[in-house]
């Protein structure tokens, strides 16, 4: 009951001197706004990265050959330190078809797709004045299933294309627009020549897929590079790497498989069975799930650090509130004396002023939250992420501004409470 009275009283007080109230709140407003803005941007990035990585496949496991870490030298995959002692990676060290077959024999039930790809490179398709930029990559059958292209015309690859390493390709509608003036039927069956840094490759177009202009790479100019799909075996043949084995393979696990746990199983399987005698290289399995996790952790850590720095301005804001509370209590000494004469206990005076300080801080907090969301949304949008507000941040901000109100209001309120009634009444 006293609380409601006190809140109403505090609001009336704020209203009676709006300019001063706003200035008092300013520190809190700025502090909360910057924390919320940072959290909003951070949250937007996290959500975006998450969806992007999720799209890439949360069930993906990357099985790669990497340097063995020894006790003396710390080595992260792919980076070699003390290269002098270490043999360069050789095709000998690669994963072989046999290894893969025996692995699939054992764990096939957990695997939905085995993704193999081989990049031929980026190049330019030319036909007289016409040209288009492409990125040539060979994909195996599983990969094509997994990618699930939207075919506009023609067909996907068939068994024979893979077996005989046929020089066939699937191009984008974008490519057709550039090279065949949008005439799909003319494109199908035509042969194209692509120049990849001086080497010429020729393919027959068997299909046209719908190019999905992903919203993140904004510009859709004439010069956009689109993917040109060829059979995996064709790429290997053209690169003369048919019998080389694989440096890295991506496995897509079935839905019911716990991919993070399964990653260890896979790693163990290859290392125990095939790499125990290899002194320099071993198999490392990374799950997309764990990558998403570490990515998210990293972003939140940065975000937290920034928010804490911004939070310092909250402390400054709190001190501002405390200062104005002290001024207000001095101004209202006579009122405090009167209240005490009318029977207010020290406790009720303390409550009155703590409530006032909390009301100031929460009001500032609310304004700050709104401002922060707006700022954060603008910043996120500007940076190319779709803004998503962090609910946790809002809850924390409200709680935090309340805490500041109590913390910085306590000292002035206590000072008011302890005033001697007669001294307060006589105060001029």
């Amino acid at each position, binding site marked *: *009951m006293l609380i409601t009275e006190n809140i109403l009283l505090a609001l009336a007080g704020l209203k009676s001197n709006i300019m001063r109230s706003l200035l008092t709140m300013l520190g809190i407003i700025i502090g909360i706004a910057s924390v919320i803005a940072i959290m909003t941007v951070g949250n937007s990035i996290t959500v975006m990265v998450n969806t992007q990585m999720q799209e890439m496949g949360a069930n993906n496991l990357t099985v790669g050959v990497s340097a063995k870490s020894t006790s003396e030298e710390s080595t992260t995959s792919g980076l070699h330190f003390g290269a002098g002692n270490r043999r360069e990676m050789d095709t000998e060290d690669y994963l072989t078809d046999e290894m893969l077959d025996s692995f699939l024999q054992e764990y096939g039930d957990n695997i939905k797709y085995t993704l193999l790809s081989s990049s031929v490179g980026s190049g330019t398709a030319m036909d007289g004045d016409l040209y288009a930029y492409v990125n040539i990559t060979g994909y195996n059958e599983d990969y094509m299933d997994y990618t699930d292209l939207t075919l506009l015309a023609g067909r996907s690859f068939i068994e024979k294309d893979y077996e005989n390493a046929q020089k066939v390709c699937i191009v984008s509608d974008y490519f057709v627009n550039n090279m065949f003036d949008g005439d799909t039927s003319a494109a199908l069956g035509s042969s194209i020549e692509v120049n990849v840094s001086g080497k010429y490759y020729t393919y027959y177009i068997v299909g046209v897929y719908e190019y999905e202009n992903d919203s993140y790479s904004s510009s859709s100019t004439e010069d956009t590079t689109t993917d040109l799909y060829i059979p995996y075996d064709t790429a290997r043949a053209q690169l003369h790497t048919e019998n080389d084995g694989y440096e890295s393979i991506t496995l897509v696990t079935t839905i019911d498989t716990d991919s993070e746990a399964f990653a260890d199983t896979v790693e163990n399987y290859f290392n125990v069975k095939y790499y125990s005698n290899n002194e320099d290289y071993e198999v490392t399995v990374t799950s997309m799930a764990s990558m998403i996790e570490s990515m998210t952790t990293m972003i939140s850590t940065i975000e937290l650090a920034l928010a804490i720095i911004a939070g310092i301005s909250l402390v400054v804001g709190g001190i501002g509130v405390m200062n104005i509370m002290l001024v207000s209590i001095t101004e209202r000494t006579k*009122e405090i004396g009167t209240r*005490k*004469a*009318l*029977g207010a206990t020290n406790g009720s005076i303390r409550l009155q002023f703590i409530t006032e300080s909390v009301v100031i801080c929460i009001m500032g907090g609310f304004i700050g939250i709104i401002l922060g969301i707006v700022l954060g949304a603008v910043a996120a949008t500007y940076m190319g992420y779709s803004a998503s507000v962090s609910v946790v941040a809002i809850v924390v901000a409200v709680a935090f501004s309340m805490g500041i109100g109590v913390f910085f209001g306590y000292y002035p309120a206590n000072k008011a409470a302890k005033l001697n009634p007669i001294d307060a009444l006589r105060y001029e």
Partner: protein
Amino acid sequence: MAKNDIMLDLHDIHKSFFIGTPNEFEVLHGVNFSVHEGEFVSIVGQSGSGKSTLMNIIGALDRPTSGEYTLDGVDIEKAKDHELSILRNKKIGFVFQTYNLIARTNAIKNVELPMMYAGVPRGERTERAKLLLEQVGMTHRMMHNPDELSGGQKQRVAIARAMANDPAIILADEPTGALDSATGRLIMDIFHKLHEEQGKTIVLITHSPELSQETERIITLRDGDIKGESVGNWAKIKEELAC
């Protein structure tokens, strides 16, 4: 007279103030007097004689340096600060020379304030505040803030506020000091009404010899000592006023 008839009893009350240096300044030098329930007493004396100092002790706003003081059976010496708050809230109604209404708080809320501290439910206290304001003729200005009221109106609201928790005693320190004589008369009439109709015990501090004559008993203070007591003659004054 039976003991419980005594509303307040002061025995050998001393009050000194410490003014910076070690030498203290004694304002009251052993004041003795008591007030019976239902009495209307005035305290007169020169400026600086210690009237307000005495009043603050009676009102439990300040503690005497030494001496015994009993208010409505409660030994003030032994009471804790918290208990004094409750005592002021329930047993004492203050009326100040400077009104001391709470700023930015309308008349009715001001009157409700002591009841709020007493924990009276909202509906009940609003009802009572309205009633009290009606008794002092302020119904029409109930919703106005203090800065929209005249001095006399403020003092009437202050009296209504003093009556909020139906106190045992009303303490008024020069309640008409800042008002013209006509308005002062109005305020005095309210005190007489409270005294006669509700049997309130009232202690009134005043500079004015005429006003003190309106009370039942006049206590004269000089330099911190009681220098005499006399009897007022309200009955006669009342007749004269009626003419």
